[in-house]
């Protein structure tokens, strides 16, 4: 029996890419297509070449790769001839918060006020000028005000000696998250600077996860994707 496996690869949740020997993409599945919004073709090709097996065949290597919200824990590189090389990246399973969100305890909040208050506090520690771009028309939504303030404090604190800090707050158009079977819009808070501390990254991840906020922590930036629960 002849089976065509292509559709299985196409719909695999983990990215798969086939390059030719000059780094041109010959094939990529759906997951890889999305991934290329966050990483360059060259970078993945270079990784494929560096981790390729010594001679024809397949080799799996455990390593952590981080591209925005994509986290991979291993890759398999394979080639059967001199012309083509493939890479498959293994998605790291996400830990689902086990704690149920007690949304009934949340209070309708204007996030802009909380953000401004936190920036005022932050300015007592870092006098460097910062740019703030925010959408004043964001509707109020339900939030644990004290917990969110803690999260904001820690996030801003990571930039305590940074300069050229850019803060922006906007609605992520077209993106949603499902919380308790309800589709909720997302707001993104992004803070970027010339550099930052990462000593509290783990705490930030935990605090964010507790409130079902997705945190993307990078070398120069922190982004929070906050569900707009109404």
């Amino acid at each position, binding site marked *: 029996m002849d089976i065509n496996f292509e559709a299985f690869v196409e719909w695999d949740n983990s990215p798969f890419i086939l390059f030719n020997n000059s780094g041109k993409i010959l094939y990529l599945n759906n997951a890889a297509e999305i991934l290329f919004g966050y990483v360059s073709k060259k970078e993945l090709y270079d990784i494929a070449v560096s981790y390729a097996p010594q001679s024809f065949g397949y080799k799996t290597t455990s390593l952590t790769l981080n591209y925005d919200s994509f986290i991979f824990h291993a890759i398999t590189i394979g080639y059967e001839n001199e012309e083509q090389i493939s890479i498959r990246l293994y998605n790291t399973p996400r830990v689902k918060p086990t704690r149920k969100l007690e949304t009934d305890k949340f209070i309708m909040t204007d996030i802009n006020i909380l953000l*401004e208050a936190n920036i005022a*506090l932050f*300015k007592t520690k870092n006098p460097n000028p910062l740019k703030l771009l925010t959408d004043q028309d964001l509707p109020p939504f339900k939030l*644990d005000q*004290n*917990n969110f303030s803690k999260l904001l404090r820690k996030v801003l604190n990571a930039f305590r000696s940074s300069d050229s800090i850019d803060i922006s707050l906007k609605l992520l158009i077209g993106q949603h998250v499902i919380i308790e079977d309800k589709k909720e819009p997302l707001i993104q808070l992004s803070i970027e600077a010339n550099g930052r501390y990462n000593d509290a990254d783990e705490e930030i991840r935990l605090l964010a996860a507790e409130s079902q906020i997705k945190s993307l922590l990078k070398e120069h930036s922190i982004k929070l994707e906050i569900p707009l629960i109404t």
Partner: protein
Amino acid sequence: METFFTTSDKIQHIIKSFNLTKTLFVSSIIIGEPHIGKKSLARYLFPDAPIVSGANQEEVTQALENHDELIITDFEKLTNQSNFDFSNKRIIATANYIGNSSLIDDLFGFIYTMPPLVERPDDVTYLTKHFAQEARSILMLDSLDIDLKNIPLNLSKNSQSLKKSIYLYLVQHSMDSSEIEEVLYHYLLKNLDGNDAYREYLSLYEKPLIQAGLKKFGSQLQLSQVLGINRNTLRKKIYEHHID
């Protein structure tokens, strides 16, 4: 109504942040040395909030049950901090120092550090004027002519020591001889003892006499003439009292 004066940038930011969160249910703590105006600031920002002291644990626990908005002073004195749940309450705490930092971090959304007076020269000028006015009125020294710049200000204990140094200066500069005599009388009454007391306590008179004389007349020669004593005697006394 409580007023609060400051030109310190840091404190202005703290006030701004508090004003923004006034209607929110967040917990905040102001941390800083004693006597820098933490409690005054809290009362100024939240004039209607009840105030309890961390020195009285039971009172705090009870107040937390009955109020959604509360000022807790001396937070560092509470030993049961870990039992508190501040969610959906508006708590404004003040503390002289951070006891358990991870606990403070966990309890409070906003953690403010208030700078001491040493870092707030403009506020010191304002407070000096304010305390000098208060002291003149209380000590009934309205006609006393002093230059505030000459007052040696003690900021080691912030507004408390500042206030004391201003009151002392005013008292010292307004005493007449009978009051000075009285001060000496009470001091001697308390301390006089031993077998060489005459010589010992004579320095209470001689030392300031020579110090003031040297400051006023510049040279030992001139001072000995003013005092009507021999120059050698004066030099000997300067040496005895370790005067530079």
